[in-house]
Protein backbone atom coordinates (compact mmCIF):
# COMPACT_ATOMS: atom_id res chain seq x y z
CA UNK A 1 0.00 0.00 0.00
CA UNK A 2 1.98 3.05 1.23
CA UNK A 3 5.06 2.67 -0.92
CA UNK A 4 8.08 3.15 1.29
CA UNK A 5 6.22 5.37 3.75
CA UNK A 6 7.89 5.45 7.13
CA UNK A 7 5.71 5.15 10.19
CA UNK A 8 6.08 8.81 11.14
CA UNK A 9 5.01 10.00 7.71
CA UNK A 10 1.58 11.24 6.77
CA UNK A 11 -0.08 9.21 4.09
CA UNK A 12 -2.09 11.26 1.58
CA UNK A 13 -4.67 9.67 -0.74
CA UNK A 14 -6.50 11.10 -3.77
CA UNK A 15 -9.72 9.84 -5.32
CA UNK A 16 -11.87 10.10 -8.46
CA UNK A 17 -11.27 13.10 -10.80
CA UNK A 18 -8.66 14.56 -8.44
CA UNK A 19 -6.67 11.28 -8.58
CA UNK A 20 -6.85 11.42 -12.39
CA UNK A 21 -5.96 15.11 -12.67
CA UNK A 22 -2.93 14.69 -10.41
CA UNK A 23 -1.92 11.38 -12.01
CA UNK A 24 -1.30 10.14 -8.48
CA UNK A 25 -3.32 8.03 -6.06
CA UNK A 26 -1.17 8.47 -2.98
CA UNK A 27 2.01 9.97 -1.57
CA UNK A 28 3.78 10.37 1.75
CA UNK A 29 4.65 13.68 3.43
CA UNK A 30 7.12 14.10 6.28
CA UNK A 31 5.10 14.90 9.39
CA UNK A 32 7.60 17.63 10.30
CA UNK A 33 6.61 19.61 7.20
CA UNK A 34 2.90 20.05 7.91
CA UNK A 35 0.74 20.99 10.89
CA UNK A 36 -2.86 20.94 9.74
CA UNK A 37 -5.00 20.31 6.65
CA UNK A 38 -4.60 23.88 5.44
CA UNK A 39 -0.80 23.52 5.48
CA UNK A 40 -0.98 20.21 3.58
CA UNK A 41 -3.11 21.89 0.90
CA UNK A 42 -0.70 24.80 0.76
CA UNK A 43 2.33 22.47 0.43
CA UNK A 44 0.73 20.27 -2.25
CA UNK A 45 -0.58 23.24 -4.27
CA UNK A 46 3.03 24.26 -4.93
CA UNK A 47 3.80 21.07 -6.85
CA UNK A 48 2.52 22.39 -10.17
CA UNK A 49 -0.37 23.96 -12.08
CA UNK A 50 -2.71 20.99 -11.77
CA UNK A 51 -1.93 20.67 -8.05
CA UNK A 52 -2.65 24.37 -7.62
CA UNK A 53 -5.98 23.88 -9.41
CA UNK A 54 -7.02 20.84 -7.32
CA UNK A 55 -6.00 22.25 -3.94
CA UNK A 56 -7.74 25.58 -4.47
CA UNK A 57 -10.93 23.89 -5.72
CA UNK A 58 -13.76 24.91 -3.37
CA UNK A 59 -15.49 21.54 -3.71
CA UNK A 60 -12.47 19.60 -2.40
CA UNK A 61 -13.42 17.41 0.58
CA UNK A 62 -10.99 16.01 3.11
CA UNK A 63 -11.00 13.08 5.51
CA UNK A 64 -8.54 12.35 8.32
CA UNK A 65 -8.32 8.72 9.38
CA UNK A 66 -11.47 8.04 7.34
CA UNK A 67 -13.64 10.75 8.93
CA UNK A 68 -14.61 13.92 7.05
CA UNK A 69 -13.07 17.00 8.68
CA UNK A 70 -12.51 20.73 8.22
CA UNK A 71 -9.24 22.47 7.31
CA UNK A 72 -8.25 23.49 10.84
CA UNK A 73 -7.79 19.90 12.02
CA UNK A 74 -4.30 19.29 13.41
CA UNK A 75 -2.35 16.45 11.84
CA UNK A 76 -0.37 13.84 13.77
CA UNK A 77 2.39 11.51 12.54
CA UNK A 78 0.89 8.33 11.09
CA UNK A 79 -2.41 10.00 10.06
CA UNK A 80 -4.11 9.02 6.81
CA UNK A 81 -5.42 12.04 4.89
CA UNK A 82 -7.69 11.73 1.86
CA UNK A 83 -8.73 14.40 -0.65
CA UNK A 84 -11.74 13.84 -2.89
CA UNK A 85 -14.60 15.54 -4.74
CA UNK A 86 -18.24 15.48 -3.52
CA UNK A 87 -19.46 11.89 -3.42
CA UNK A 88 -21.79 10.46 -6.08
CA UNK A 89 -22.58 6.89 -5.03
CA UNK A 90 -25.94 5.17 -4.50
Amino acid at each position, binding site marked *: MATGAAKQDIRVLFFAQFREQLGCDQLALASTDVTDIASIKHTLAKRGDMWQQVFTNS*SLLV*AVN*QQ*MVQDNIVIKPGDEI*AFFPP*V*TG*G
Partner: protein
Amino acid sequence: MKSHSFRRLPVADTMDIKITVQAQDFDPGAEIKWLERDTSEDGALVTFIGKVRDHNQGEQVAHLYLEHYAGMAERSLQQIAEQAKQRWQIGKIRIIHRVGELHVDDNIVFVGVTSAHRQDAFYASQMIMDYLKTEAPFWKKEQTAAGSRWVTANQNDQNEAQKW
Protein backbone atom coordinates in the same frame (compact mmCIF):
# COMPACT_ATOMS: atom_id res chain seq x y z
CA MET B 1 -19.55 17.84 9.72
CA LYS B 2 -18.69 14.97 12.02
CA SER B 3 -16.14 15.41 14.75
CA HIS B 4 -12.61 14.19 14.34
CA SER B 5 -12.85 10.81 16.00
CA PHE B 6 -10.60 7.80 16.24
CA ARG B 7 -13.22 5.48 17.71
CA ARG B 8 -12.74 1.98 16.36
CA LEU B 9 -15.89 0.73 14.73
CA PRO B 10 -16.79 -2.95 14.80
CA VAL B 11 -15.95 -4.91 11.68
CA ALA B 12 -18.91 -4.20 9.46
CA ASP B 13 -21.09 -7.05 10.75
CA THR B 14 -22.63 -6.48 14.14
CA MET B 15 -25.58 -8.61 15.12
CA ASP B 16 -28.22 -6.39 13.58
CA ILE B 17 -26.29 -4.15 11.16
CA LYS B 18 -24.54 -5.74 8.20
CA ILE B 19 -22.54 -3.67 5.71
CA THR B 20 -20.84 -4.95 2.56
CA VAL B 21 -18.97 -3.21 -0.26
CA GLN B 22 -18.44 -5.68 -3.08
CA ALA B 23 -17.90 -6.01 -6.84
CA GLN B 24 -20.28 -8.93 -7.32
CA ASP B 25 -24.06 -8.73 -7.62
CA PHE B 26 -26.35 -9.45 -4.66
CA ASP B 27 -29.43 -11.63 -4.29
CA PRO B 28 -32.29 -9.56 -2.79
CA GLY B 29 -34.12 -12.77 -1.77
CA ALA B 30 -31.15 -13.97 0.28
CA GLU B 31 -30.81 -10.54 1.89
CA ILE B 32 -34.51 -10.50 2.82
CA LYS B 33 -34.05 -13.93 4.43
CA TRP B 34 -31.18 -12.54 6.55
CA LEU B 35 -33.35 -9.55 7.54
CA GLU B 36 -36.22 -11.85 8.55
CA ARG B 37 -34.05 -14.09 10.73
CA ASP B 38 -34.60 -13.37 14.47
CA THR B 39 -36.88 -10.39 13.78
CA SER B 40 -40.30 -11.95 14.48
CA GLU B 41 -41.28 -8.87 16.50
CA ASP B 42 -40.87 -6.73 13.37
CA GLY B 43 -44.00 -6.39 11.28
CA ALA B 44 -42.37 -4.24 8.62
CA LEU B 45 -39.56 -4.89 6.18
CA VAL B 46 -38.65 -2.17 3.67
CA THR B 47 -36.09 -2.66 0.92
CA PHE B 48 -34.65 -0.29 -1.65
CA ILE B 49 -32.57 -1.25 -4.69
CA GLY B 50 -30.70 1.39 -6.70
CA LYS B 51 -29.86 0.43 -10.30
CA VAL B 52 -27.85 1.73 -13.25
CA ARG B 53 -30.20 3.63 -15.56
CA ASP B 54 -29.64 4.09 -19.28
CA HIS B 55 -29.43 7.89 -19.22
CA ASN B 56 -28.12 10.72 -17.06
CA GLN B 57 -27.95 14.50 -17.56
CA GLY B 58 -29.23 14.21 -21.13
CA GLU B 59 -26.85 11.47 -22.36
CA GLN B 60 -27.23 7.75 -22.99
CA VAL B 61 -25.10 5.85 -20.50
CA ALA B 62 -23.42 2.66 -21.72
CA HIS B 63 -21.86 1.65 -18.43
CA LEU B 64 -20.29 3.20 -15.39
CA TYR B 65 -17.37 2.66 -13.09
CA LEU B 66 -17.81 3.01 -9.35
CA GLU B 67 -14.72 4.05 -7.41
CA HIS B 68 -14.62 3.96 -3.59
CA TYR B 69 -12.38 4.71 -0.66
CA ALA B 70 -11.87 1.25 0.81
CA GLY B 71 -12.20 1.29 4.57
CA MET B 72 -13.87 4.67 4.82
CA ALA B 73 -16.76 3.52 2.61
CA GLU B 74 -17.66 0.64 4.95
CA ARG B 75 -17.10 2.79 8.03
CA SER B 76 -19.29 5.56 6.69
CA LEU B 77 -22.17 3.17 5.86
CA GLN B 78 -21.86 1.63 9.33
CA GLN B 79 -22.14 5.08 10.93
CA ILE B 80 -25.16 5.96 8.80
CA ALA B 81 -26.89 2.71 9.85
CA GLU B 82 -26.09 3.41 13.52
CA GLN B 83 -27.60 6.89 13.21
CA ALA B 84 -30.80 5.38 11.78
CA LYS B 85 -30.95 2.90 14.67
CA GLN B 86 -30.61 5.67 17.21
CA ARG B 87 -33.38 7.63 15.63
CA TRP B 88 -36.05 5.02 15.00
CA GLN B 89 -37.18 1.70 16.40
CA ILE B 90 -35.30 -0.61 14.08
CA GLY B 91 -34.61 -4.35 14.15
CA LYS B 92 -32.00 -5.03 11.48
CA ILE B 93 -30.29 -3.01 8.75
CA ARG B 94 -28.58 -4.43 5.69
CA ILE B 95 -26.60 -2.22 3.27
CA ILE B 96 -24.72 -3.45 0.20
CA HIS B 97 -22.93 -1.13 -2.21
CA ARG B 98 -21.32 -2.44 -5.38
CA VAL B 99 -18.10 -1.10 -6.91
CA GLY B 100 -16.21 -1.51 -10.19
CA GLU B 101 -17.69 -1.68 -13.69
CA LEU B 102 -21.50 -1.79 -13.80
CA HIS B 103 -23.85 -1.88 -16.79
CA VAL B 104 -27.37 -0.63 -17.51
CA ASP B 105 -29.93 -2.49 -15.33
CA ASP B 106 -27.25 -3.73 -12.93
CA ASN B 107 -27.91 -3.38 -9.22
CA ILE B 108 -25.80 -0.73 -7.46
CA VAL B 109 -27.10 -0.54 -3.92
CA PHE B 110 -29.33 -2.51 -1.55
CA VAL B 111 -30.83 -1.10 1.65
CA GLY B 112 -33.07 -3.26 3.84
CA VAL B 113 -34.61 -2.26 7.18
CA THR B 114 -36.91 -4.12 9.58
CA SER B 115 -39.06 -2.51 12.24
CA ALA B 116 -42.11 -3.16 14.38
CA HIS B 117 -43.77 -0.30 12.49
CA ARG B 118 -43.78 0.59 8.82
CA GLN B 119 -43.21 4.33 9.31
CA ASP B 120 -39.92 3.72 11.10
CA ALA B 121 -38.77 1.31 8.39
CA PHE B 122 -39.72 3.75 5.58
CA TYR B 123 -38.10 6.76 7.26
CA ALA B 124 -34.94 4.87 8.18
CA SER B 125 -34.40 3.45 4.69
CA GLN B 126 -34.96 6.88 3.15
CA MET B 127 -32.58 8.58 5.57
CA ILE B 128 -29.95 5.90 4.95
CA MET B 129 -30.14 6.49 1.18
CA ASP B 130 -30.10 10.29 1.54
CA TYR B 131 -27.05 10.17 3.81
CA LEU B 132 -25.34 7.53 1.66
CA LYS B 133 -25.66 9.75 -1.40
CA THR B 134 -24.03 12.73 0.32
CA GLU B 135 -21.55 11.20 2.81
CA ALA B 136 -20.34 7.76 1.74
CA PRO B 137 -17.12 7.94 -0.35
CA PHE B 138 -18.20 6.45 -3.68
CA TRP B 139 -17.80 8.15 -7.07
CA LYS B 140 -19.40 7.29 -10.43
CA LYS B 141 -17.68 7.68 -13.77
CA GLU B 142 -20.02 7.26 -16.71
CA GLN B 143 -19.21 6.00 -20.18
CA THR B 144 -21.38 7.73 -22.80
CA ALA B 145 -21.18 8.05 -26.60
CA ALA B 146 -19.34 11.36 -26.03
CA GLY B 147 -16.70 9.72 -23.84
CA SER B 148 -16.28 9.22 -20.13
CA ARG B 149 -17.15 11.75 -17.44
CA TRP B 150 -17.28 11.89 -13.66
CA VAL B 151 -20.80 12.35 -12.38
CA THR B 152 -21.18 15.66 -10.57
CA ALA B 153 -22.82 15.87 -7.17
CA ASN B 154 -26.49 16.77 -7.22
CA GLN B 155 -27.64 19.78 -5.14
CA ASN B 156 -31.02 18.12 -4.75
CA ASP B 157 -29.35 15.19 -2.95
CA GLN B 158 -27.77 17.67 -0.53
CA ASN B 159 -31.16 19.26 0.11
CA GLU B 160 -32.78 15.86 0.73
CA ALA B 161 -30.07 14.87 3.21
CA GLN B 162 -30.41 18.16 5.09
CA LYS B 163 -34.11 17.52 5.71
CA TRP B 164 -33.20 14.84 8.29
